[in-house]
């Protein structure tokens, strides 16, 4: 386990690198901003995002050091020592452990136990901390925004900044009651983080960037573009239409539609931003609601909120958090 003294020593001569994986709208960028704002030394935070819709994977990077010259770089982070994943569904869609050195840390908002996560990311040489940030967020904040909560887990294992430093940054950024709730949620996260320590610390002195990672090798090169600027729908480049993309892979609720209560008013169909309410024409020539397309439903709850007869209800997808750490070592 890392100690505050060791971390401080490292920061004098090297950088400590963080990477945050989230989905658009979950606050990954804010989480990384807060790291720079809370940190006592020099820091730079780079987001990697632009035009993503809500739910698309995003990344942001943080580089921290007590040495100003080392954080002058505006590069993205390729050798993160601490990776935070705000949405567990990203584990199967994004290579979240790319460039993480042996002994590095993976922090995940999840109910999965750490051995399952090891399987999912195919790495047995990194430490894993898990926290059911979604549950804490829903309890304390009323919404599944887990960005500040995951910073609680980060504090617990990295000692990069204290709860007080983070609280100050939060109070500068958020207003009144919201700031207070976030700090409360962070305190819970610090306590509840489940730590799977493999007994190896990361070597902060070594650069673990995979050469040319920034080039996305495997995507078509310039010789393979038909005409620059023109993209045709074909198997090589854009194999499917957007309706084949599993945009329902995330979202914390299962949506349940009750056929008997439904009056076919179709307000849910109108308000759903993803056309995820299914309907078909009956023999009477009128449209009838027949269900919810879970392949595309991101559980935004618009339909539930607008239904005048409460024919749509929600059920939390995740169960209780699991932990692979033996109780005597601090597991649950």
């Amino acid at each position: 386990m890392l100690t505050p003294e060791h971390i401080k020593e490292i920061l004098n001569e090297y950088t400590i690198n963080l990477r945050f994986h989230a989905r658009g709208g979950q606050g990954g960028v804010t989480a990384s901003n807060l790291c720079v704002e809370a940190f006592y030394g020099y820091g730079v935070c780079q987001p990697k995002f632009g035009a993503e819709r809500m739910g698309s994977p995003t990344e942001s990077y943080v580089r921290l050091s007590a040495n100003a010259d080392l954080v002058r770089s505006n590069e993205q982070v390729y050798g993160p020592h601490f990776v935070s994943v705000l949405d567990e569904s990203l584990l199967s869609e994004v290579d979240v452990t790319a460039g993480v050195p042996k002994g590095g840390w993976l922090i995940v908002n999840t109910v999965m136990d750490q051995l399952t996560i090891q399987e999912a990311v195919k790495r047995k040489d990194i430490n894993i901390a898990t926290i059911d940030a979604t549950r804490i967020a829903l309890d304390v904040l009323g919404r599944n925004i887990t960005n500040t909560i995951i910073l609680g887990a980060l504090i617990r294992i990295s000692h990069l900044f204290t709860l007080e430093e983070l609280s100050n940054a939060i109070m500068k950024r958020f207003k009144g009651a919201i700031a207070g709730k976030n700090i409360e949620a962070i305190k819970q996260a610090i306590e509840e983080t489940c730590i799977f320590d493999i007994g190896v610390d990361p070597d902060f002195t070594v650069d673990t960037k995979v050469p040319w990672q920034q080039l996305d090798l495997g995507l078509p090169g310039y010789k393979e573009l038909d005409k620059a600027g023109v993209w045709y729908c074909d198997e090589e480049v854009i194999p499917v239409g957007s309706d084949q993309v599993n945009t329902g892979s995330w979202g914390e609720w299962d949506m349940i539609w009750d056929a008997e209560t439904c009056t076919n008013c179709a307000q849910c169909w109108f308000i759903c931003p993803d056309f995820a309410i299914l309907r078909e024409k009956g023999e009477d020539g009128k449209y009838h609601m027949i269900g919810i397309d879970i392949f595309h439903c991101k559980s935004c709850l618009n339909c539930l909120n607008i239904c005048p007869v409460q024919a749509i209800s929600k059920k939390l997808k995740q169960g209780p958090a699991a932990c692979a750490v033996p109780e005597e070592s601090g597991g649950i």
Partner: protein
Amino acid sequence: MSVEPMKLFFKEIKEPIETAMIGNYAVAGGVTQTDPDVICAFPITPQTQSVEGLSDVVHQGRLKAAFVNVESELAAISYSTAACAAGARTFTATASQGYLLMSEALPMAVGWRVPLTMMISARAFNAPNLSIWNSWEYVLTDYGWNCMVSENVQETYDAAILSVMISDNSLFPTMFVHDGFIISHSVQKLWLIPDEVVRRLTPKKHRHTITTKHPGVWGGIVTPSFFMEGRKNLDEAKKPVLNIMKKAFEEFGKATGRHYNLIETYNLDNSSRMAFITMGSMCGNIISWMTKNKDIGLIKIRAYRPFPYEELQKIVQEHNIEKLIILEKSDSLNNLLPPFSTSIATALYPLKTLFRCFIVGLGGRDVTRDEFAVAKKKMESVNDMKGQLYTYLGVRETKNKIYEVNR
């Protein structure tokens, strides 16, 4: 609804404050402190938060400026040029396609000698595809605007103030640029300057304006009998501008402790007699890389326009630089070299320095230690100025092959 980082600017800043925020809000803050009279800009990624931040300060009341919403960038530059010509301290901002849409009026701001200031969050032109990410679009056009390029959030905040000083003293419009997304959206720490210091650096001075007391015609048609004299007049007026920029940097340095220059250099007296030469955020990447690679230097261009030819020649000669590695985030398609390299080549023409241009980072692609190492290695075997003088570096040739790089 307020944007939190702007809160610091809602009241008087009485002493230097260390804080952290993204480049766009830092610019909004710096511009606020210069007390503009008119703000007129159209939103475009990645500049939007700078104008949003300014609308915040105007709404809150601290900044008594006319915040004018217009329907496009062409309207924004037309309005801004006119307002500035009428005597208002005026600020506008744009990027990429918005900058192109402004084209019709950009030369006029130069021709009429108006001290307009404009921020650009550098973003690629939409060719061949739409990109909202970083490229040096501003080097692809040159209407005579002064141009200053910043490496990080502190510098772009300072540039907001320096640009007003430079514009006011030169009576040419000034654009200050930072790399879009990389700086505009990056949270970095910076020191804010006390309001009173900014006021002292940017006093509102009497200058030529449109006024009924002294009627005239601005930009009216002239026959071939006069046009050329008008252009030569502009050429003469541009000659003192580099010195004006230098003086502004000196005054700024005395007031804040941050000493900038037209060109800044790092580790030029090195064993390889080579140096990178570039602008903007890449300079930070190179400086960090150089902490472990000490046998190469960096020439950082801050004043891009007017281009400091003499200073560059002096630096190259004084330090006996034999080879220059130009890193440029733009390409030309038509020319021997892209624009930034062309300016450098013109400066180096009388000298014997060898150079090559590496086109990197287009459309927001990250420029990293891999590119620096390869560029340095390639330059080591360059011994003449024959053949193609530019290479695209960091581009996929096929799915698994990188152009001109053996892995």
